[in-house]
């Protein structure tokens, strides 16, 4: 069940005309982002202008050639960077890391000085979960990502795929209604990647958490998303914005990939990405 969108706590009269029947979780308006431009350096426009609205419950996949600014866009939504121009709002607020969204990076970025369980526990602590509840919640979260018996392990004692699962559990720990994932499976081997894709698809369909997922894989976009946005090469602009109307539950991965619609979407998005790279 998709969770209900956040109702604006402090209605701003200036923004009222923009509000439709339900406010989007993420809204990106005329955003441009430029790097560099300091003394003696030429500035590079990495992104934009881009406008996007992501309603609650959507699983949006951002695809594009490398250097198209898709990761930049995700970092703007996460609040790690401020847009050079334009506006990014998440739940109607200016994004701030750790306050609106759970974030999964390309590398697991776990803390090696903590055990698997303590990595998740720290996220619970910073999310304000009382100490007494943390152990139970940690166990629940680890079970949800398929790592029920690894809580006491050291980070270097588990595989790269397992580390990324822990990173997902850590991102879920905050109980945020938005999940941002930056090529989380790109560094994994093909088998592990497929398994994690299937698991993420299932968890996502069950929880209906609004998600933004960055990848350069067309197949991943069709397989995971409910909507795909293709960004063009630098500076990244929206080249294609297409809903993925595939069944979210009750269809196995092989069956899903065998559907004619799946192949058609793959072809269409693939063509758009190739065109965008030119």
């Amino acid at each position, binding site marked *: 069940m998709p969770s209900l969108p956040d109702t604006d706590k402090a209605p701003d009269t200036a923004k009222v005309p923009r509000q439709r029947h339900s406010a989007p979780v993420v809204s990106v308006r005329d955003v441009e982002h430029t790097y560099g431009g300091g003394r003696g350096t030429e500035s590079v426009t990495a992104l934009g202008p881009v406008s996007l609205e992501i309603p609650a419950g959507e699983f949006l996949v951002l695809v594009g050639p490398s250097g198209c600014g898709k990761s930049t866009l995700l970092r703007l939504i996460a609040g790690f960077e401020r847009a050079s121009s334009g506006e990014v709002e998440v739940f109607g607020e200016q994004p701030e890391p750790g306050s609106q969204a759970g974030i999964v990076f390309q590398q697991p970025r776990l803390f*090696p*000085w903590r055990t698997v369980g303590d990595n998740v526990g*720290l996220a619970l602590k910073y999310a304000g979960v009382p100490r007494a509840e943390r152990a139970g919640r940690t166990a629940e979260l680890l079970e949800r990502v398929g790592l029920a018996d690894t809580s006491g392990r050291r980070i270097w004692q588990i595989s790269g795929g397992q580390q990324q*699962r822990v990173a997902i559990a850590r991102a879920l720990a905050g109980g945020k209604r938005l999940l941002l994932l930056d090529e989380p499976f790109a560094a994994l081997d093909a088998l592990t990647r497929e398994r994690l894709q*299937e698991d993420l698809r299932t968890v996502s369909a069950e929880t209906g958490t609004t998600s933004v997922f960055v990848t350069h894989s067309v197949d991943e976009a069709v397989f995971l998303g409910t909507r795909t946005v293709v960004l063009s090469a630098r500076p990244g602009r929206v080249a294609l914005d297409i809903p993925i109307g595939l069944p979210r539950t009750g269809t196995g991965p092989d069956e899903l990939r065998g559907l004619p619609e799946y192949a058609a979407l793959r072809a269409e998005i693939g063509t758009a990405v190739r065109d965008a790279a030119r």
Partner: protein
Amino acid sequence: MTTPTSVRERAVPAPAGRRPERGARWRRVGLRLVALAVLLALWQLVIVLQLWSPVLVPSPAAVWRALLETSGTHDGVRGYQGHTLIEHLGISLRRIFIGAGAGVVAGLVVGVLMGTLPWVRVVLEPAVAFLRTLPPLAYFSLLIIWFGIDEAPKLWLLAIAAMPPVAVATASAVASAPTALVEAARAIGAGRGQVVTSVVLPSALPEILIGVRLAFGIAYSSVVAAETVNGLPGIGGLIRDAQRYNQSDTVILGLFAIGISGLLIDAGLRVLSDRLAPWRRHA
């Protein structure tokens, strides 16, 4: 909410155990023992050939006798100047631990401030670098004028000598905290202070511990200098005092005592840093 698949991903195999290294390790220990024996034999040979006067180069036996004499009571004289060798060493070690310990703590505080606040770094970096270049003996004279000739100037000397290496190591480690992990901490809602405690300090720990080892090494080499003034009891005082009476056997004994205890402390610190930062070997 069940998890769809069982976890079939295999854990990374434990880093190839030390089994194959074991033989090599014992061979190394054996080789070192042989080298030590050869050295002792050469020493004895020098004595037998009477190349130098025994006053300049005492025999191994004379040093051994000095060890026995300074370790107990002989002819109503207890140890050396009323204290046994172990007591002299213990007093020096105590000075090192208190003095260098204070210096390490000060270095940590200064280092963390330098590493996290750029303006503190700008202000303090030259001062710390200046202090680091000074030979401890150079400012010892000033410390004696200020604090007299008892314990205070010795502890201050060791503290001042131990501070800079820890401060420098801490500052550089703290300043170069991995951005990826800092972002990961911010992503789970860590505030400024929490980023320091959850990422910056733990990631800096291995480098800080190297700074601490360096600091203790410097404190060790400074303690003999510190004990040249009113250093008895103390191992440096013992060496200094024995020198005045040309007791080269006792001087050599003191050198061995300092060298061996120094090696033991460094080994201890190394074990401690492996314990405190086990992830370093798995990075």
